[in-house]
């Protein structure tokens, strides 16, 4: 029983990591209907920025964290301006390919600048565990869970309660109509990329003590976060986190109870089954096209 709870908690922590990355996917998708395959790589780059500020320049952890978030928000805007804006509105497939290209580019440039070793960031939560009875929880995992819950709530409120959030939803629904309504669509898209890059950076920095950062971490985790976003229904913020937690728990349970090899495929099998039964994901909205 204790094993089960321990696996469950570590699965939830892992799932929150996926959920945190998936939030970035969902944000960009919700505001622009663009699927950003480079999201994981943005996270990786954010981690490296934080590593540079904290590990190499010796800044205070929180200061370095904030610096990395601001730098990445600017980078997100730049990436949007250069890669996405010229093709906004073209078939999704082109944009997917463009962001895959961006991901390739970021991975190899990071590899060239920082090298291909694993890096670690010293954080206030690096050591130390919380004991509840005989259950052991590491602080670094708890920090990920807490950050995921807070970010998810903030973003949910942002999208549903603020004018800017409503403007974002409007411009994804129908860009031309949004222009007519006086929404500065280009600026809105630019802002959402900045936010999503900032969220990715938060994920990258929180992950650093758990998974370390190296130039391929974005690809590896991005490929797990992506099913999480799909499982939750691509346009739903709570869905991303629920999907992430599901994937994390399934992975950790399969690693513990099933023979070797199932750990890596179990999330994908579950994903395929869910897509078969409910093609728009668990929290997706099903709508019909008017002809």
């Amino acid at each position: 029983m204790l094993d089960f709870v321990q696996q469950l908690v570590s699965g939830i922590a892992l799932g929150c990591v996926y959920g945190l990355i998936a939030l970035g996917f969902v944000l960009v998708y919700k505001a622009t209907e663009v699927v950003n395959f480079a999201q994981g790589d943005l996270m990786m780059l954010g981690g490296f920025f934080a590593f540079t500020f904290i590990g190499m320049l010796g800044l205070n952890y929180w200061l370095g964290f904030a610096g990395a978030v601001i730098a990445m928000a600017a980078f997100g805007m730049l990436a949007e301006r250069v890669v996405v804006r010229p093709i906004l509105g073209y078939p999704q497939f082109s944009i997917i390919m463009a962001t895959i290209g961006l991901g390739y580019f970021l991975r190899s440039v990071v590899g060239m600048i920082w090298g291909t070793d694993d890096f670690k960031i010293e954080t206030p939560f690096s050591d130390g565990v919380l004991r509840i009875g005989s259950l052991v929880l590491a602080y670094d995992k708890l920090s990920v869970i807490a950050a995921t819950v807070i970010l998810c709530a903030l973003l949910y409120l942002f999208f549903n309660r603020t004018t800017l959030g409503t403007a974002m939803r409007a411009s994804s629904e129908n860009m031309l109509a949004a222009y007519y309504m006086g929404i500065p669509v280009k600026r809105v898209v630019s802002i959402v990329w900045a936010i999503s890059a900032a969220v990715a950076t938060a994920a990258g920095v929180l992950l650093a003590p758990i998974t370390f950062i190296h130039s391929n971490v974005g690809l590896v985790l991005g490929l797990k976060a992506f099913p999480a976003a799909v499982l939750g229904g691509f346009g739903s913020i709570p869905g991303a986190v629920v999907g992430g937690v599901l994937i994390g728990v399934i992975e950790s349970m399969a690693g513990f109870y099933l023979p070797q090899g199932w750990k890596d495929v179990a999330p994908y099998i579950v994903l395929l089954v869910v897509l078969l039964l409910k093609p728009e994901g668990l929290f997706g909205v099903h709508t019909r096209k008017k002809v």
Partner: protein
Amino acid sequence: MRFLFKTDYEDDIRLFPHSGYIVSYGILLAFLVIAPFVLSSYLVSQLVFVCIYATVGVGLMILTGFTGQASLGHAAFLAIGAYTAAYLQQYNVPFPVYFLAGGLLTGVVGALVGFPALRLTGIYLVIATISFAFIVEEVLARWESVTHGNEGMRIKTLSLFGQAVPQNGPTFYFLCLGVLILTIVGTLNLLRSPTGRAFVAIRDSETAARSMGVNVSLYKVKSFAISAAITGLAGVLFAHKLSFISPEMFTLQLSIEFIIVILIGGTFSLHGAVLGAIFLVMIDPFLTYLKDDLPGIISGLAATFGADSVTAGKVYSNVAAIASANGLKGAIYGVIIVLFVLFEPLGLYGRWLKIKLFFQLFPLYKRATFKRQKIYVKSERNR
């Protein structure tokens, strides 16, 4: 400029619309036939890879280019073809049999993947095909009694009608070329038949196709099956060319490479598959060439523009350091993909058509002919 006067449907669906086509393709064929005897063995080996990649490209083009169903799982189909060949070869099954068996089995698997894909569109389909590819990769690594797991499998030299066909010889090149040509001609025939028309109708508008009486589900499954089968055939050749296969060769990376083939070539025509394959395969030798010669060229240039020998030496070592940096290939790949998506969405074949039109209309060419219209995002959720 030539104006074709078409009087009936037969004129419209001809494979060679006019004699110019026969002449130019004849010249191309003649060049390909003499190629193995005049080119270096390295280039011939690259040409074999071009043929294999182009065959996969044609398969993927049927699915993505003509039916509009994106797939990032074609490496798995290639793997199934390759492993079928490796497995059957152990039991001394002759090449023609396991070649066809590889295609058939992959086609059946493709159809099975096609069924769940029926209800999925866009991004959901992409992720479903990625998941499928991951599962296949894991099965290949774990099903050790058949696939030998991560140790991989060795493939014996191909033997055709009692003759050994080494994978570096001209005969193997002709075999791959023949398969490619047959695939292309078969696909062209398919595309001018009702099945092909139905594919294109589904790509352009699923709702419209359905209301015209096209059985959308049936044709989507067919498209998946045909595309997978062609990829499986290429997989058999791929296995023979490499003479060793293991699961980590068939990763998402390879699937992305196949998508790059059709994207860079141009997704609207079969020419694109071949041009894209040439581009993707030939970029490797080109990059190696750059790595060796670029520092010399640039420092030479610097010297001619008045730099003294110390500066030229510095330039040389700097450029050499950048050119031989690890992972430069990835960065160049990334930049190429982004540039093609942004500036040449019709791919290499689209560029060729533009150049051709420029000369046909010589003083009258208007740049706006191919200008893209501004499109505004409209939600795909309301599909």
